[in-house]
Structures are given as C-alpha cells and as structure tokens.
C-alpha cells in the first residue's frame, strides 16, 4: 500500500455549472489534518468524496490505496472508514446505545456480544456511557453530536473523516474530545473540517485551507501561524487600514494587517489571525468568518 492514505489529483466536483471543488490535489497520511475554510469553500464536498458518498465530476481519487468508484473496493474502504457527517438524523425511538449498536451492525459487527462491547467502548470514549440508555431525542445537541462521533469511532478506523465534530460542545467536552481524536491521530489518518481554529491549533499538525473549491494553503499549522508573525498588533485605538480589527476584552484593539497602527505593539499571532490574513477577509465579512 502507498504510504499516503488519501491521494486526490485534479479532483473537480460540480453542482450544475458551479464547481464546489476545482482541480484539487491533496495527499494525506497518518496524523490529524485540519480543514479550514469559509462556508461554501467545498469542505463538506471534499469530505463526502473521501467518505465515498459523492463521486467527483473529474479527477482521480485513491482512498486507503483503493479506488472508491469500484463497488468492491468501495466496500473495502467503507470497512476501514469512520465518517461523521455534518448533519445526522436519528431513527425514532432509538437510545444512544441502540443507535451506535445499529450502526455497528451496519458496519458488519455481527457477533452480538462483541458488537455491544464495541458500542459501549466508543460511547465511553466520547463520555456518553452514562447516557447510553437515554433516547436520542431526549439528548442535547452536544450530546447527540458526541453519540454521532462515537459511531464514527467504531472499529478504530484507519481513516477518520469528521465534519465539524465539536459543533455544539461545551469547552470541557471539546477538550475531552481532543484527547480522543489525538489518540486516533497516532495510528490513523484523521481529517477534521471545522470552523473552530482553536481545535485545529490544539490538535492538528497540518492544516489545509480551502477557498472557492481550491487549496489556499497546505502545510504545518506552525508554518501558517508563523506567516502571520509581525502582522498582528495590539493598539489603543482602531486603525482603518487594518485588514481586521476588533476590540478585545481588555479594551485594546487587536489589528491584523500589513500596516501597524500608531503606537501599536506586536503580539503573538494565533491560527485564527493567520487564517484571516491568508484569506484577506475584508472587515465587513469578518463576522461571518468568525461565526
């Protein structure tokens, strides 16, 4: 098998005439890769292609060394894949345990006792074992998200494709999930699409930034953060020349841009600063990006 788990060459996906992905090249190996980008950048489309849900309009795609468009190879990929979709529905009346157990059955866990043990293991991993008997509809959004993540972890997959796994989670839950994902990242390929730059900074060695279906940046997180060094300042007043600026909790203004405001002092950039700089987001779009 090739050392890369995922290899995309010139992948294009069009919905009608508009391309969601535009000639994308991407190679992924073991470890955690963060996928950032604004809404509509093509993140979910990319993830769905890797998860074998979608077929690209053009280009070649290898996943786990196999061709996802050959039915038998696709099934082999799916046996080694864990996928957390952006949105999940839940069959009526299912408890958290039954939901995971049912999906384990769909993942060919036929032995009842082994399947139940696996369902309990993954529910425990995401901190949901105490609520395993509770109906899905009675769980909060964050709890349901954790149960959905649990099903993606069934069988310790070799490729973990996660679309916004931390949506709706409180800070403790997010930190707890980071522990789970970092553990998975030691032996599997994890692709994590999110709007939470803190999660990417805390978890990922590598970050891919998408914009309009193209790769805007692909490299180590530290490299992207370093690219913003010398372009983030703290100042007492707002400067119109800043690419982005906002008043922080200390009362001072954080400026991102190419021109230092008068009397400003340089500060250490975060991944979010670097991402905003990379995208060159105009100030009036900042709210959308930050959401």
């Amino acid at each position, binding site marked *: 098998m090739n050392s890369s788990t995922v290899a995309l060459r010139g992948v294009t996906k069009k919905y009608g005439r508009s391309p969601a992905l535009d000639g994308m090249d991407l190679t992924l190996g073991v470890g955690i890769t963060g996928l950032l980008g604004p809404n509509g950048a093509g993140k979910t489309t990319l993830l769905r292609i890797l998860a074998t849900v979608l077929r690209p309009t053009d280009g070649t795609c290898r996943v786990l060394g196999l061709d996802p468009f050959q039915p038998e190879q696709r*099934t082999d990929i*799916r046996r080694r894949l864990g996928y957390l979709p952006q949105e999940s529905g839940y*069959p009526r009346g299912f408890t958290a345990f039954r939901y995971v157990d049912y999906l384990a059955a769909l993942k060919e866990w036929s032995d009842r006792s082994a399947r139940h043990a696996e369902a309990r*293991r993954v529910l425990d991993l995401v901190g949901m074992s105490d609520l395993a008997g509770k109906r899905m509809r009675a769980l909060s959004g964050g709890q349901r998200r954790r149960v959905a993540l649990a099903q993606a972890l069934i*069988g*310790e*997959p*070799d490729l973990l494709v996660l679309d916004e796994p931390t949506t709706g989670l409180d800070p403790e839950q997010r930190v707890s999930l980071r522990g789970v994902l970092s553990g998975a990242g030691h032996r599997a390929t994890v692709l994590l699409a999110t709007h939470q730059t803190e999660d990417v900074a805390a978890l990922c060695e590598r970050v891919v930034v998408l914009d309009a279906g193209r790769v805007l940046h692909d490299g180590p997180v530290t490299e992207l953060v370093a690219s913003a060094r010398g372009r983030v300042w703290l100042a007492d007043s707002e400067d119109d020349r800043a690419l982005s600026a906002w008043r922080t909790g200390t009362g001072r203004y954080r400026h991102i841009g190419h021109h230092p405001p008068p009397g400003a002092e340089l500060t250490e950039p975060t991944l979010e600063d670097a991402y905003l700089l990379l995208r060159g987001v105009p100030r009036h779009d900042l709210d959308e990006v930050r959401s």
Partner: protein
Amino acid sequence: MSAGTVTAPTSERAALATLARYETVRLARHPLFIVGTLLWVFVLATYVSDAAYGDAGYDLTQERPNTSLDSPVAPAFMIGLLGLLAMNRITSSSGRLADALEVAPVPEVRRTLALCLACLLPAAVGLAGSAYVFYVWMTDPPIYALGWNEYSDAELAANLAAGVLACVGGPLLGVLVGRWWRWPTAAAVTSVLLVMWAALSMIPGKTLPLSLLHHSSPFALVTGYADPGHWHEGGNLFLRLGYLSGLCALAVLGAVAHGTEGEARRRMARWVIGTAVVTVVLLLLAVTTGPESYYVVDPTWPLQ
C-alpha cells in the same frame, strides 16, 4: 487489513442475518404492528368458534355471522395494512441516518433484504392465527358457514394461506414504498389505494373480466352475501396463492432494485419483468381453472 486493534468483520451472510434480526426486533416493538397483532388476537379469541359467537349473543341457526374462514381479510387488514405502515416507517426512519448509512459497508441491497426478512415476523403471526382458525374449523365446524362447505379441506387451507400472504405482502409493500417514495404521506396514500384495490374482492365474478377483477385483489373474499343468499366464487385457490406470492416477490425485487446500479439494475429489471409476467399468468390461470362460481338462494334469509 485494518490497522486498528479492534476488529469486527464477518461474513456477508452473518451481517445480513444480524441486520434482519435487528429490523425484526424494530418491527416487533413498533406500536402499529403491536396494535395490529393485538387486534388479530382479539378477533381470534372472540369470533372464531360457534361458542364464541354464541357468547356474543348470536342465534346460530337464524343469524349468519361471518364465519371464521372469511377471516383472511382480518389478518390482511390488521397485520397486513398496519404492517405496511410500520415497515414503511422503519424503512424511512433508517433513511434519516443519511450519510452515516450511506457509508456503511453493508450495501443498500442487503439492508433492504434485511427489511424484507423482517416481514417474516408478520407472516409468522398470520400463520399462527390462521392455523388456529383452521384447527377450530376442523375440530368444531360451524353450524352455518355460507358456501364454505363446498370447498375441500385443502382449498379451505389455501384460502387461509392467502391471508398469511397478505400479512407478509403488506409490510413488503411498506418497504417498497419506503425505498422509492420518500414523501411523508406516501404510506398513507398507498394504504388507501390498497384498501380500494382490496375492495375489488367485493365484486362477485359473474363474468371473466369481473372474475379477474375479483381475484386480482390482494386479499379476496371467496364467499359473500348476495341477497337472498350468498355467492360462491370460482377459480383455483392454489394458483391464486401463486399469484399472491408473485405480488410479494415483485415487492421484494422492486425494493431491492433501488439499491442497484448499472448492470445489476438492468438484471434486476429483467427479474421484475419476468416475475410480473409469471404473476399475471398465474392470475389468469387462477381465474380460468377450478370450479365455476355460483349463487345459492337461501329461503331462510332472515331479512326477506
């Protein structure tokens, strides 16, 4: 092979059996199926024997309650129709898993087969009830029984077996509709159409076209009131079982076809066409062979 330390996988057949068990349990727990089964048990306990009719206040020599052998329509309505709604909901609710379901290694064809196998549960319930009805008929025949005495024991059993096939056919239709039509009222609309189709069995087969209409019904009454007596439907009840089995097979093939593509779908289409042809031929044979229909004028008809 997976690099993971946790392994699961097993044979495809074992995966199908596991899923079939899972779907069967879901059906067994479904409120609509439970209600249908309880209603069927209530009918069995209340209206099968003369003793039960007597307890219900009927004068068994003067009044003519429906006999227990008219009952194919009872399981068909209670288990078949409610089973249709239940299986449709189960099929549709699995669809809510969307992408999580899509990427499961078990393909849709096998998931659909598992749903179809779950329909053996209503068949088993219908079979158990019908066997009980047949047992009561053989050991304690009713005093008045429309034209049923004209039939052989095997024909009576075939008539009851038609009810069992209705028990499995309704849920299979629910799976078929759940696979192809996702709008919320699809099952309700199908139920109404099914009842209208079943109402064709109220038409006595006086002519060949009418007899075709009568027997094409998914659960047909083969005796009925026809003031001042009753009619006795002709045709071959055994071949009619073949026709009903063909309808069930069409539902399975149609549902399974949804998960196929390319050559597999073309092959499935050929199977559907072939099965449809055989089913129609069996219906024609059921109508054109066997005894002719006739009418009995009963001078004791109490409403005259």
